[in-house]
């Protein structure tokens, strides 16, 4: 049963996609950086602020109860959305970055010491690198890397040796540069076989594909609201409850305590233990609206739509630009998402994206917070076009037209 995504109807849900840039309709191809938001999400934010805005978990009055219920409903919805066995395994953070830092500080500083090894892939985002390097600098933890092959896939040929002594494997389910989709289930199995835990950075997966943390059988998963049609300011950590229950708090403050005296504090239960201070309440509720929106369309339909569109993009780009264009990463839609890192002639990505902007085409230029991967690719930067549920073939065509134009501009 394939659900069909009506892209015109979807596009109409996103107010920003109606705007013009430099007199042209916007062509938004930077969803890997942040997605646009459907009006359903903005409506939920406004409804919260206009009807039930109150601090949660502490008020006995009506709107405080409504706000509390709305936040806990969101937690339950997120648990269902990613296949978490328990609602209390969902911890809210400000973004995926904080969620990884939470694991690195709380689990990492409790369990890892000098000589312990963390294994990362060489295509990780800085969010899944720097926290582990901080741990390395602070207490002599060793960081090791799964290499990336010329085909844009992780190179597992030496995995047995790499896994030796590893306590944690931390990998992305989808690369934010190459679109690569590593075999998570298989990696988790390999990690568990040597007694290591596995953290999955699903920031580029959850927005685009059905997610089932139980099927992955991993230990921690992080993702971020603003890339999945949700507001900025909210991210999610899912962790296995036995692990979370054994972890000390990270940030200290209100709501994460069971008791505070002049002599010390006792932490609260999970997940409150990890949610210090006033939560991003509106954002958590907005994220719930995003989840509902995505579920109504169907994650299978979104995945299929993106796959079709990616196939069209790969084909059109190569047909019209030929050897002038390099697409980094896997070159078949079966093993990649809709994130296309491009090199066009010798035009610097920054200049490329500037000319594209004149066409209303938004692509990102830079290292995409993956500098180690850039050294492997042998570049300082790429121009990255990334597709999402609201993109259509016309968007891809606009990208190609703009690239042609950029070629002419800089050839002068």
């Amino acid at each position, binding site marked *: 049963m394939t659900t069909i995504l009506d892209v015109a109807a979807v596009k109409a849900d996103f107010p920003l996609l109606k705007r013009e840039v430099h007199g042209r309709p916007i062509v938004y191809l930077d969803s890997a950086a942040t997605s646009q938001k459907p009006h359903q999400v903005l409506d939920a934010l406004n*409804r919260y602020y206009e*009807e*039930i805005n109150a601090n949660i*978990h*502490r*008020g*006995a009055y*009506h709107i*405080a*109860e*409504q706000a*509390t*219920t*709305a936040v*806990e*409903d969101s937690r*339950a919805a997120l648990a269902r959305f990613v296949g978490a066995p328990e609602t209390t395994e969902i911890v809210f953070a400000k973004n995926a970055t904080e969620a990884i830092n939470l694991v690195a500080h709380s689990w990492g500083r409790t369990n890892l010491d000098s000589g312990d090894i963390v294994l990362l892939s060489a295509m990780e985002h800085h969010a899944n690198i720097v926290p582990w390097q901080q741990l390395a600098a602070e207490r002599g933890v060793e960081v090791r890397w799964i290499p990336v092959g010329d085909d844009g896939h992780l190179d597992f040929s030496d995995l047995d040796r790499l896994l030796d002594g590893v306590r944690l494997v931390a990998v992305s389910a989808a690369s934010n540069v190459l679109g690569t989709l590593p075999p998570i289930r298989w990696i988790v199995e390999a990690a568990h076989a040597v007694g290591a835990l596995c953290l999955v950075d699903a920031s580029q997966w959850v927005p685009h594909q059905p997610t089932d943390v139980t099927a992955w059988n991993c230990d921690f998963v992080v993702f971020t609201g603003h890339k999945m049609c949700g507001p900025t300011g909210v991210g999610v950590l899912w962790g296995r409850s036995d692990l979370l229950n054994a972890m000390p708090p990270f940030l200290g403050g209100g*709501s994460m*305590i*069971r*008791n505070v005296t002049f002599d010390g504090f006792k932490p*609260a239960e999970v997940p*409150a233990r990890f949610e210090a201070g006033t939560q991003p309440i509106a954002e958590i509720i907005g994220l719930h609206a995003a989840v509902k929106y995505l579920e109504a369309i169907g994650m299978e339909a979104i995945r299929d739509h993106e796959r079709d569109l990616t196939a069209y993009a790969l084909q059109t780009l190569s047909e019209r630009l030929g050897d002038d264009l390099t697409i980094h990463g896997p070159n078949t839609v079966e093993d990649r998402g809709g994130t296309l890192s491009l090199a066009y002639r010798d035009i610097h990505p920054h200049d490329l994206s500037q000319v594209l902007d004149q066409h209303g085409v938004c692509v990102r230029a830079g290292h995409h917070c993956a500098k180690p991967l850039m050294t492997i690719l042998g570049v300082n930067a790429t121009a990255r076009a990334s597709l999402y549920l609201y993109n259509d073939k016309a968007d891809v065509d606009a990208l190609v037209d703009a690239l042609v134009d950029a070629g002419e501009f800089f050839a002068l």
Partner: protein
Amino acid sequence: MAGLEDLYREIILDHYRNPRNRGELEVPPAKVAEGFNPLCGDEIQVYLMVTDGMISDIRIGGQGCSISQSSASMMSTAVVGQTPGEAREVLRSFKEMMSIHEHGLDGEASPSDQRPDPSGLGDLEALRGVVKFPVRIKCATLGWNTLDQVLGQVDG
């Protein structure tokens, strides 16, 4: 829309004004556990004496609002004279009654609110209205969670 009368049933106010089994027991031979409501600062102590496999005495200490106090008071009368196993059963039924399912933003009653009483909770049924006030559920369950802890210290 839930009103005050859903929350403050007469029997609840009665237990609040005249709490049953208030006080302490000597530890040992009794066991004691302490519970906190981290949201509002309420605290409760539950003292439990088990003799010949039966809860022969239970006492409640601490401070709290009418809901937490009356719930603990009713709890004490419900479990005294039972075996620890039977008390765990009441505990389970009560927590089930208190478990909230999806509440809409407009505070509709949850399904559990309409269900008939399957468990013979008796007077404790009066606390069913609390589920319409999600913030107060922690008040109603404070004593029970503390009972759970102290039961963990006894065998059988």
